[in-house]
């Protein structure tokens, strides 16, 4: 339930500008999906909110305060490496709970961890298994369970279901949506990075499309409770189909522009090499 404000947010990796003036304000309780091409800065934006990258304190505010580093108020779910492989899946949840609820004893932690294991539709028998012995879907469920168990008001999910098969991914999308919707007025604010337009349409209350790096937001769309697509209407509702086409076109245009830009760069390099070789020949 935290508000996130980005005011002309800029960020560079080794002097290379990745984000160039991102302006956006996510109201508390929103489910924001971020779409964009690979390398456009979606994950960077999420890492900035998560405090894993340093931002200008004036350009990024969470709940009105600058972000100075990671916090238990901002739980993260990564695409991989979400769980520590040397701990059992259950221990992975418990160690997170230990940091958040310092006065809880081992039994309290286990009780809450098991509750979230059940909420995520996992078998309790998996609690004592190592991540190595779990499927990709089960691992992501445990990582999601850990994030929800922390009860962080802001949840940051970086392509969490990107590496899963379609069925597992769909099941997890439904679970996350259900858990988020269940909290009603105390809903967490979720930032969710994805490559999939359909996933964004299904989950988001707000969709952001980032342009090519150095990127800024090139398109936004907000749903109301009434207009928010559901899985049943995802492929039948004309308004949703129209929006999907629009989003796909925006992304395809970006791909075409990127391909053109790369081609131009390649041509420039070839021209300059040719010029050099001609000069050398003349000399």
């Amino acid at each position: 339930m935290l508000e996130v404000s980005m005011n002309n947010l800029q960020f560079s990796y080794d002097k290379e500008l990745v984000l160039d003036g991102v302006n956006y304000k996510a109201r508390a309780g929103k489910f924001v999906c971020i779409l964009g091409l690979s390398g456009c800065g979606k994950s960077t934006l999420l890492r900035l909110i998560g405090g894993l990258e340093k931002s200008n304190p004036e350009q990024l505010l969470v709940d009105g305060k600058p972000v100075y580093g990671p916090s238990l108020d901002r739980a993260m779910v990564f695409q991989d490496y979400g769980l520590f492989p040397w701990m059992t899946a259950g221990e992975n949840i418990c160690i997170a709970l230990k940091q958040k609820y310092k006065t809880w004893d081992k039994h309290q932690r286990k009780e809450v961890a098991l509750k979230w294991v059940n909420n995520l539709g996992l078998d309790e028998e998996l609690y004592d298994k190592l991540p190595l012995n779990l499927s990709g879907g089960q691992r992501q469920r445990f990582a999601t369970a850990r994030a929800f168990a922390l009860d962080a008001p802001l949840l940051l999910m970086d392509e969490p279901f990107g590496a899963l098969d379609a069925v597992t991914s769909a099941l997890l999308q439904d679970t996350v949506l259900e858990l988020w919707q269940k909290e009603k007025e105390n809903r967490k604010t979720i930032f969710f990075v994805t490559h999939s337009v359909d996933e964004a349409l299904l989950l988001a209350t707000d969709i952001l499309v980032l342009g090519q790096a150095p990127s800024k937001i090139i398109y936004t769309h907000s749903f109301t409770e009434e207009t928010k697509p559901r899985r049943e209407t995802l492929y039948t509702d004309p308004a949703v189909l129209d929006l999907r086409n629009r989003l796909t076109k925006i992304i395809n245009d970006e791909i075409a522009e990127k391909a053109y830009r790369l081609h131009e760069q390649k041509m420039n390099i070839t021209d300059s090499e040719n010029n050099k070789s001609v000069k050398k020949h003349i000399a």
Partner: protein
Amino acid sequence: MLKVIKDYGSIILIGVCILIGYILLTDGFAVLSSFLFPSIFDVLKLIPEYINQLFAGLKSSLYLLVTAYVLALVCAIALGTLIGLKSGLRKNATPYINAFSAIPVPLLTPYAINLFPTFKAASIFLIWLAAFWVILGTTIGAVMSIDKRYLENAATLEMPRLEKLFRVILPAASPAILVGCSVALTLSFMMLAVAEMFGASSGMAYFVQYYSDFARFDLVMLGFLFTAAVLVFIMYIFDKIKHRILHWTINN
């Protein structure tokens, strides 16, 4: 019993083949000199008479080995973790680590004897040094190469430093650290032999050295076999510990 045969059958078979080979080369066809390579049966007959001496040597050697190795383990892992985590310290310390670790430890024997008040202290120092450099090097490398995502995962949980060290950094670095520990253990054994060759009055290497001076190669052979058996046993225990620590990796 069946499980032992199933698990270790091939290993036992190789051992038996080596033994048969030795018997054929000595008793069978007398290819090897019986003075330097005595009959295995003659060697085995010596066990009852020398068993107490061998075990007294084992006790003395283990005291030196365990003390030095444990000290090296603690010092090298603590220092290696610190250097691995602090890039500034690493930058400044690496040239010196490279320089000092390149000095062959046996060459430092005269210095050790001169600097330390007793033979035991000098021996422990030499064994410690041999193990220390290897474990230090692998620990620095292991900590440096921990996947950044594990550290970020710990950061998002706001894990306190000490807990992060024991629950994230050391487990993540443990596969590589344990490789170094294994090499260091073998080196420690070799260094033990060097250390026991001066000033010692008992020990496994001392036993071999002492009877070699009297050209009692049957007892030298007995000393070799006993040392090999101890080494195999210690490495077996070490492997068990290693497998326990690395139970979460694919190969375990």
